[in-house]
């Protein structure tokens, strides 16, 4: 017998990869998430941007327009016009009522009542309402300037402070909130893309009755699991790389500049993101193998893994919404990569040490899980379900 030239890990890895690539379902699963995730985001953003930058006229009900033709003219210049169509179902009408006493009030310099009736909590109408308020305020200050000038006063006396706003929000940091959700897609891509392969090479192996023979070969169960984990990680990375490449590409086609957001992720940063995802892919795969090696069938494993997918989502959304700012987050698996990705997208300086530490910690935890699965498979209780 010739001497063993390669570690069994490599043999298992190569076989599993070949097997998985031939499985169209696995390849489709890995690709579809990476494709449709970012695409879905793009559509969502597109709708959001077009709503935010809506340049069309605001159509509202105006009562008593005949009392204040000058105000109506001004509002029209600001793109606020009288509505002729009915309000669509489910939308609260916005109504502006100009009092009958308008002309007299203006003439005698009394505050003229104008009533704005609307559902102020309706998010869809918020920007419309804000535009109406601004227009009315604008007209109001225009009038007061004229009145002061007519009385021989410098209008500037009623403006004791000139507030100059310097917006220090870089375009990048403004986009961070938006991009937070995109990050979740990138992070989860490694969890989704390798999932099918992970199930197939663990629970699938048991289901098709090939596990017993495989475990009776001259390789340790640890080597076997390691080879399998690397194969599934390759698929996870395939999805990860796809989404890292696709997401910036898709954003290039979105009119993000219209809402004052710039997302420019350069090649070195993309490369860094891919490097960051690598240990995470191994981590995801190790967790998936852990649960699905315990399952007796493909179906059972799928059930467990869908629960497992909640874990990264909870971690990422939890940190996002609870606005956790604990420095430990920078060092842990998953949250460490999440924070670093946030920094990259905000365009902030990267914290290299935590980044490195979280990468190493992720890899070590993954290898420990893999070692544990190896021990698990050496136990007859787990293998034969005794």
């Amino acid at each position, binding site marked *: 017998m010739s001497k*063993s030239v390669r570690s069994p890990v490599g*043999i298992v890895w190569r076989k599993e990869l070949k097997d998985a690539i031939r499985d169209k379902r696995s390849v489709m699963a890995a690709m579809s998430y990476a494709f449709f995730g970012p695409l879905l985001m793009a559509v969502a953003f597109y709708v959001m941007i077009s709503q935010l930058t809506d340049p069309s006229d605001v159509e509202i009900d105006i009562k008593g327009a005949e009392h204040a033709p000058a105000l109506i003219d001004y509002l029209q210049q600001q793109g606020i016009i009288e509505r002729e169509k009915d309000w669509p179902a489910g939308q609260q009408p916005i109504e502006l009522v100009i009092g009958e006493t308008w002309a007299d009030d203006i003439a005698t310099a009394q505050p003229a009542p104008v009533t704005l009736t609307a559902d102020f909590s309706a998010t869809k109408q918020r920007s419309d309402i804000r535009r109406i308020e601004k227009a009315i305020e604008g007209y109001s200050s225009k009038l007061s300037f004229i009145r002061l000038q007519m009385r021989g006063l410098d209008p500037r006396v009623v403006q004791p402070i000139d507030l100059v706003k310097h917006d220090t929000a870089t375009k990048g940091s403004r986009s961070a909130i938006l991009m937070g959700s995109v990050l979740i897609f990138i992070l989860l891509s490694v969890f989704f893309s390798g999932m099918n392969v992970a199930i197939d090479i663990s629970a699938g*192996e048991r289901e098709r009755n*090939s596990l*017993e023979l495989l475990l*009776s070969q*001259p390789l*340790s169960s640890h080597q076997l699991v390691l080879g399998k984990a690397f194969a599934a990680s390759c698929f996870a990375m395939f999805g990860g790389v796809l989404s890292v490449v696709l997401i910036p590409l898709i954003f290039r086609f979105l009119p993000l500049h219209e809402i004052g957001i710039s997302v420019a992720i350069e090649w070195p940063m993309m490369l860094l993101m891919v490097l960051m995802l690598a240990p995470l892919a191994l981590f995801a795969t190790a967790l998936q193998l852990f649960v699905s090696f315990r399952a007796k069938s493909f179906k059972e494993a799928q059930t467990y893994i869908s629960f497992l997918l909640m874990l990264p989502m909870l971690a990422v959304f939890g940190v996002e919404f609870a606005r956790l700012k604990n420095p430990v987050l920078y060092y842990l698996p998953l949250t460490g990569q999440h924070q670093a990705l946030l920094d990259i997208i905000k365009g902030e300086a990267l914290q290299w040490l935590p980044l490195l530490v979280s990468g190493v910690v992720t890899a070590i935890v993954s290898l420990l899980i893999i070692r544990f699965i190896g021990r698990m498979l050496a136990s007859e209780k787990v*293998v*034969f379900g005794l």
Partner: protein
Amino acid sequence: MIQVTELRKQFGKVTALDGLTFTAPEGQITGLLGPNGAGKTTCLRTIYGLLKADSGQALIDGIDASKQPLEARRNIGIFPDKFGLYERLTAREQVAYFAALHGLEKEAGQAAVQEALERLDMLAIADRKATGFSQGQRMKVALAQAIVHRPKHLILDEPSRGLDVMSTRILRDLLRELRSQGTSILFSSHVMQEVAALCDQVVVVAKGKVAAQGTTEELCQLTGESALEEAFVKIIGTDEGIAA
């Protein structure tokens, strides 16, 4: 040589092996004959180290698989109780995978795989994917996997189940050929004919113990019966779980 001494194994309250002792010497075919649930599969799994015996030991050329599993497994070919194929791999790729796991790669691996495929007369299906293979073709792939690294010991768990006459013949010829090359072959069965036709030595197992041991003739003499079947029924005291 495979030596099994005083093997005991308990699953909960069920005693699967109860002091099983026998040897499977080189150049001989040893048949493990017993009714369903006698402990045959448990015994074989213990020999290649997938199950741990509560006491006693199983040695393969003096190596205990529970202590040095990798060393022990290098010297054995296994045809397990359940074998599943990788449906997306061709027969050749499956056999090559197991050859590689035994350290046979590249040219050496290809040559070994080719030899095993030729020996089992399966060149016609060698480069087809396993999806759609018949039971007999699947069995051949599993057999090729077991012998590709030319093991000194061959352990087969009910190898003839589901086989047609032609496949059974190929299996028998293969086992005889390997025996003549000095391989020690241990196989379990509950099919009388098969055991009678093939085995140099029969170990009758019942309730986890060796009920009798010897050649077919010896067993018949022992019980005073002329057919192995009758002898067998007499030995285990019941005809339950036996196929003629």
